[in-house]
């Protein structure tokens, strides 16, 4: 009977266990997680959960009863220390040794840290885990001054939530625009203006020199131009690094993520890797990439479970992402690789009172490669289908909101 061991009990690992059972795997499954919690959803940590609109119960991926009912053995608060590929054994820090026939590495990513003078002080937070979110939530309140280092999605979502709780928010970004690594300039400009309208201050092109404080507590962020931003709390959100050390130490090829194929298999046919820790093929884009997203983690969880059980592999998906900030729903499909232009549909003016609603299509010739849709679900859904089909469209019709996305796709 095939024994499956899953290292990492996040969204990817927890889902892989569930898909294995769904696909009929009858052998033992052991799910090992470093955090003390059963698998939970991370996206709400910066959004509904932070604002107090969702409880711990709602965060859980599956109810606690699920694991017992489906005979999934769970080890929480436990790190794996080593993999012996020859003997097919996973070693845990408490001395337990788990033999496996198939191993799934789902160890995720950790927050990138800045090596700054003063960076170890209290009230300097990051946001990856529920425990991080607890500390952040405890510190955000009316009138509290929050400085967010890094204008990526985590930083901006927390900024929006903190404004809803009436905290004062400043975002410090090293690049000339926010979302520089993950979105096009039209979207960056729109989100900057929209956050501005909601009272968020920005320092762009700004580098941090040090964190200053008293009694081990951060009280100011010192910029390289000499200015100091007084604060009660600092959130560092400058990206994530894959937790690939276990795989590396076991001699599995890694390159900014564990390298896997389109079945989530590593160079060792008995070892799979899924989620944020992987660098995965993107056949649509002719390259491999490390995606940090729930949909990608779920797709790979299905790939691994299907490969292990002999179930039919899942249909390949166009990568997609979402973010909620204020009353904005941002949905992104595809990635803007090898593009030569953009088509804007709708009005990306943040000052409009009619409710913002627009989409930016990133094109290669007449083929859509990516779409960034703000409060525009039809553009997102229609765009996602067209990206997958790689079917050329009329740029003129795409740019005209009077022509429905159904008609554009027809």
């Amino acid at each position, binding site marked *: 009977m095939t024994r499956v061991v899953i290292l990492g009990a996040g969204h990817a690992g927890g889902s892989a266990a569930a898909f294995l059972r769904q696909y009929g795997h009858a052998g033992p499954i052991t799910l090992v997680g470093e955090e003390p919690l059963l698998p939970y959803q991370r996206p*709400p940590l910066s959004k509904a959960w932070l604002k107090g609109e969702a409880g711990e119960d*709602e965060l859980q991926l599956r109810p606690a009863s699920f694991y017992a009912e489906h005979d999934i053995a769970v080890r929480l608060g436990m790190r794996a220390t080593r993999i012996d590929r020859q003997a097919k054994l996973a070693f845990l820090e408490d001395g337990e040794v788990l033999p496996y026939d198939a191993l799934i590495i789902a160890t995720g990513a950790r927050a990138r840290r800045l090596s700054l003078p003063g960076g170890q002080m209290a009230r300097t937070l990051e946001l990856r885990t529920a425990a991080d979110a607890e500390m952040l939530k405890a510190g955000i309140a009316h009138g509290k001054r929050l400085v967010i280092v890094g204008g990526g999605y985590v930083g901006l979502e927390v900024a929006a939530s903190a404004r809803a709780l009436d905290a004062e928010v400043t975002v410090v970004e090293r690049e000339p625009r926010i979302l520089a690594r993950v979105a096009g300039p039209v979207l960056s400009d729109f989100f900057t203006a929209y956050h501005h309208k909601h009272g968020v201050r920005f320092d762009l092109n700004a580098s941090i020199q040090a964190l200053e404080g008293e009694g081990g507590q951060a009280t100011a962020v010192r910029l390289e131009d000499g200015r100091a931003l007084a604060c009660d709390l600092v959130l560092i959100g400058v990206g994530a690094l894959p937790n690939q050390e276990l795989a590396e130490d076991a001699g599995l090829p890694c390159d900014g993520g564990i390298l896997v194929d389109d079945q989530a298999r590593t160079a060792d046919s008995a070892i799979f890797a899924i989620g944020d820790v992987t660098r995965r093929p993107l056949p649509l884009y002719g390259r491999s990439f490390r995606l940090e997203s729930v949909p990608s983690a779920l797709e790979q969880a299905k790939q691994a479970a299907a490969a292990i059980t002999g179930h039919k592999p899942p249909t390949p998906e166009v990568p997609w992402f979402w973010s909620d900030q204020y009353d904005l729903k941002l949905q992104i499909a595809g990635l803007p690789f090898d593009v030569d232009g953009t088509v804007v549909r709708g009005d990306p003016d943040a000052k409009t009172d009619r409710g913002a609603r627009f989409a930016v299509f990133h094109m290669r010739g007449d083929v859509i490669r990516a779409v960034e849709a703000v409060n525009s679900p039809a553009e997102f859904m229609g765009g996602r289908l067209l990206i997958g089909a790689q079917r050329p469209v009329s740029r003129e019709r795409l740019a005209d909101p009077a022509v429905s996305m159904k008609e554009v796709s027809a």
Partner: protein
Amino acid sequence: MPKITYIEFNGTEHAVDVRNGLTVMEGAIKNNVPGIDADCGGACACATCHVYVDEAWREKTGKASTMEESMLDFAQNVEPNSRLSCQIKVTDALDGLIVRMPEEQH
């Protein structure tokens, strides 16, 4: 607690109690009812919690928002009684609700 009956594509019925205030999608996940994926966890961002609302219950479950309608427009096998179950809040008025699941959410 309102009772909701979820019927899988293969006909398997799951009658479960769902607390007021949860969504029909959350009711399925919390009770281990298969057939609803809910990849985005209820953010109305993915259309993988598609259900067919039993004809007798269509009025009580209300109308889809514009956002939901646009998402459904591009989902597979959509019928006039299609809804995204993350957008239906459970109340006492929905005690007895019956929803059916499509063959696939992807």
